[in-house]
């Protein structure tokens, strides 16, 4: 008990003061570290404030006025990163200056739906917009009653047919699936799945377990690989040749790191979004190519939630995303824009893919449900081509 009383005056107290000072200094310095400018190396996007293109209906002004009454907030549930969103939010706020707070809750592509369905069934969700590229989950979500708001965007007339992915679901960007490879360790650059199979078969010892594929049981892996086999008559035979050399991974981040390090020599059906920045950073060590035998294109869909707290602002946002200004911002953020006429230095576009492999070889992934037994039989076929790993599963 003596120790208790003298605690505040004993030698330890000097240390306590020092400790508090250190904590304070640390807190101050981390505050100071906040805030920095983001650079935009791309040419500035010209935004007309509060102006809408002339092909919009006359009543559109009502939507704009209604949005002014809504409080300037927007809540998005998406699987898209802050960096991808940053130019989009910046330009949207520039265009409609009364909107001050656009926040994106970042979730996994399927968790987006689980969360919003759970919230909607227990009395209301704070989400205004839903963004995801999980095709099967979108199809399931859109089919249910009372999940999405009916809305037809006036931009549809200016866009290709695939811009409307499902009733009330629109395409925000179109992400291409690439083949990423390590330029130093690969004997030659692959040009497609068949070419990759050729290279591997020519030197099986080097390539055994050195090619990575996305886990086919995951929503993303299944969707893009399934689209490939559906659209491409030679799809299964090409996969049959290349799958024995592969190992599955569950994230593109892991795949790109391992290709960089040389643990894998190549990987296929890796989405452009995570791949392009790594290509830029690696100064030529890693490169990506669009598969010539078929490049799956996975659109990123956006829809307005049924009881969105800010319906008018949500409509403005959806229309903005699909407009020319919005598509520039989408491309600036690192995703692939698909509207005609959007192009520039460092911007990735749908047109780029068509130029590379030709329109017949771009496989647009449809948002549709796949019956359970079809999924199972597809998976069985996939696994029959993959050789069992040394540790038997």
């Amino acid at each position, binding site marked *: 008990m003596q120790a208790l009383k003298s605690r505040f005056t004993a030698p330890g107290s000097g240390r306590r003061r020092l400790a508090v000072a250190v904590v304070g200094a640390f807190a101050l310095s981390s505050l100071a570290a906040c805030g920095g400018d983001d650079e935009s190396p791309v040419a500035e996007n010209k935004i007309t404030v509060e102006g809408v293109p002339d092909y919009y209906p006359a009543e559109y002004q009502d939507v704009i006025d209604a949005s002014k009454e809504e409080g300037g907030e927007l809540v998005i549930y998406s699987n898209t990163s802050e*960096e991808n969103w940053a130019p989009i939010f910046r330009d949207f706020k520039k265009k409609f200056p009364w909107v001050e707070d656009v926040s994106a809750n970042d979730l996994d592509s399927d968790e987006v739906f689980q969360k919003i369905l759970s919230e909607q069934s227990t009395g209301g969700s704070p989400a205004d917009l839903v963004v995801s590229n999980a095709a099967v989950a979108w199809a399931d979500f859109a089919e249910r009653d009372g999940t999405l708001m009916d809305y037809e965007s006036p931009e549809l007339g200016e866009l290709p047919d695939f811009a409307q992915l499902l009733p009330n679901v629109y395409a925000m960007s179109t992400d291409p699936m690439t083949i990423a490879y390590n330029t130093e360790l690969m004997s030659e650059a692959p040009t497609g799945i068949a070419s990759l199979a050729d290279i591997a078969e020519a030197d099986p010892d080097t390539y055994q377990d050195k090619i990575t594929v996305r886990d086919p049981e*995951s929503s993303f892996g299944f969707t893009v690989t399934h689209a490939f086999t559906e659209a491409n008559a030679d799809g299964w035979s090409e996969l049959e040749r290349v799958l024995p050399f592969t190992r*599955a991974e569950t994230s593109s981040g892991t795949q790109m790191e391992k290709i960089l390090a040389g643990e894998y020599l190549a990987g296929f059906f890796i989405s452009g979004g995570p791949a392009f920045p790594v290509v830029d950073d*690696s100064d030529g060590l890693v490169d990506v190519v669009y598969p010539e035998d078929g490049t799956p294109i996975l659109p990123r869909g956006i829809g307005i939630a049924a009881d969105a707290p800010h319906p008018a602002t949500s409509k403005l946002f959806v229309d903005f995303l699909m407009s020319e200004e919005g598509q520039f911002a989408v491309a600036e953020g690192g995703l692939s824009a698909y509207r005609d006429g959007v192009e520039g230095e460092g911007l990735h576009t749908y047109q780029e893919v068509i130029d590379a492999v030709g329109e017949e070889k771009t496989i647009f992934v449809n948002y549709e449900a796949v019956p359970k037994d079809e999924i199972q039989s597809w998976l069985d076929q996939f696994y029959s081509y993959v050789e069992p*790993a040394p540790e038997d599963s």
Partner: protein
Amino acid sequence: MSTITDAPRTPGSEQRETFEPPRYRRPLGIGRDQLVQYGVLAFLAVLVLAPIVPTLYQSFVDRPLYEDGRVFTVEGYKALFTDAGFGEVILNTLLFAGLTTVLTLVIAIPMSIVVVRTRLPGGRFIALAMQWPFFISSLILGFGWILMYGPAGFVSVQFEKVFGGVPWNLYSIPGMAVTEAVALAPIAYLFCANALRQSDASLESAAQVCGAGPLRILMQVIIPMLRPPVVYSSILVFSMSIETLSVPLLYGQPVDIDVFSTFLYRNGLQSVDPDYTVLAAASTVILAVTISLVAIQAKLLKDAARFVSVRGKATRPRKLELGWVKWVSVVFIAFYIVFGALIPIGGLVFRSFTLIFTPLRNPFDFLTMKNYETIFTFDTYVQSIWNSLIVAGVGSVLVSSLAVLAVMVARRSTFRFGRGVEYLALIPQSIPGIIIGIGFFWAFAYAPFGIGTLLQGTLGALVIAFGIRALPSAFGSVAPSIMQIGAELDAAARVSGADWLMTFFRVLRVLITPAFAGALILTFVIMLKEYSPAVFLSSADSNILGTTMLELWAQGRTGSVAALASIQILITAVFVALAGLLMRGKHRA
């Protein structure tokens, strides 16, 4: 402290009391002891059962809870047990968890003995350094290990150049066990170290008087007295290994090794066709396993009087002179710290300063601050750092206090449901984090008086969910220390008129303070790196470090992940160092 008593008066004359025993009010015949004890039980029951009840319900219902038209079914359990390959999954899981536990103890026990009970140069630094792997989530640690020791890791490539081959295979069950053991050994170390600091020198003196040398004292007095922390930590580590997802996923996925958690992950939310019923059924199975583990633990710790070492008389544990054995263990510790912790974490920190990190290129050519810029440019990322600090700071105080109260009720009172309190406090340790998140989501949705809507999406929800995850560790770290305090102190207090609560506040509280401090540090670290329950409970305003790291990882921004991990390590190291400084005079009770 001394009480002065008057000379005894002659019988017959009035005895004037020099010491007034305290009086207690008993409104409605219920003493305040009972109030507190029942209160703790009720509070724990609500907190722990809140996420479990929806999960149990879901396991018997054929569709997700947000859909109408539910039908009761046992299909979930049937599907689980008849799934081809499930038997292998169970075997893999048991092997993995068992190996991890053994390795953890092999690392932690010698290390705690050598650091706490022998004169080790740089002992304090070593004690801190060995906890570094614990400061980051095992996802990041696994990533660090792959960077260094994986098939294309820096160390592997160098080793291969010199020796022509690599004798280890990270992508295997032993590989997973080693990494997980490195990540969890600090828990066992903390438990054992706390207990060792309170050892009773008189027992060892008695052994010495009988002619025992230091090694014998070690083997026959000190190590057997470590049974409570060893049992608590091994049960904890075993349960955490059953539930851990990151390391088995990173290492097992490329070679098709499935353990329970990866099995759930692949058939659960990530799957193209998620089956909530099976998910919930599997969680219930794990729950049953945990309950039986806690029962085993109770059996092992019966007759707790054997482990008492803090008595009415104050003693100070002495340092042992172990001679050459000490140097062997120093080498062993150095090996563990350098290869287990320093190299992978060093690699990670270095990764945060480069654009790319590959043995094929000189990393010094790619140095950059861009990864840190990315984090500090976006307000949400910076906000997540602050949120994490708040959640961990507030949460650790609350959880540690609750843990101390719970241990007092469970092990230090005559409360008839004391065993129940212990079970409740330890159950959450092996429920997968995502299940806790989903369970709390539904609990908040159906909570009465709209409490749920107040909490959902706020930091409060995260404090609760993360707190539940940290509670078993806090309980396990405090319990052995309390068990070491002799019961005669309580008896003496009772004789003087103190009830249970007063015994706690006036007698035991100061003795428990070191354990409380240890639990505080432990829970802070755990809650800082937690993330899986946050998926369902957080909103854009309540982002935390873990979810931000996951987000960046999914986009392939591994440099920024490494940057955030480095920041997390820095915060934790600073906190632990400060806490260690502040607690420095308090180790002697």
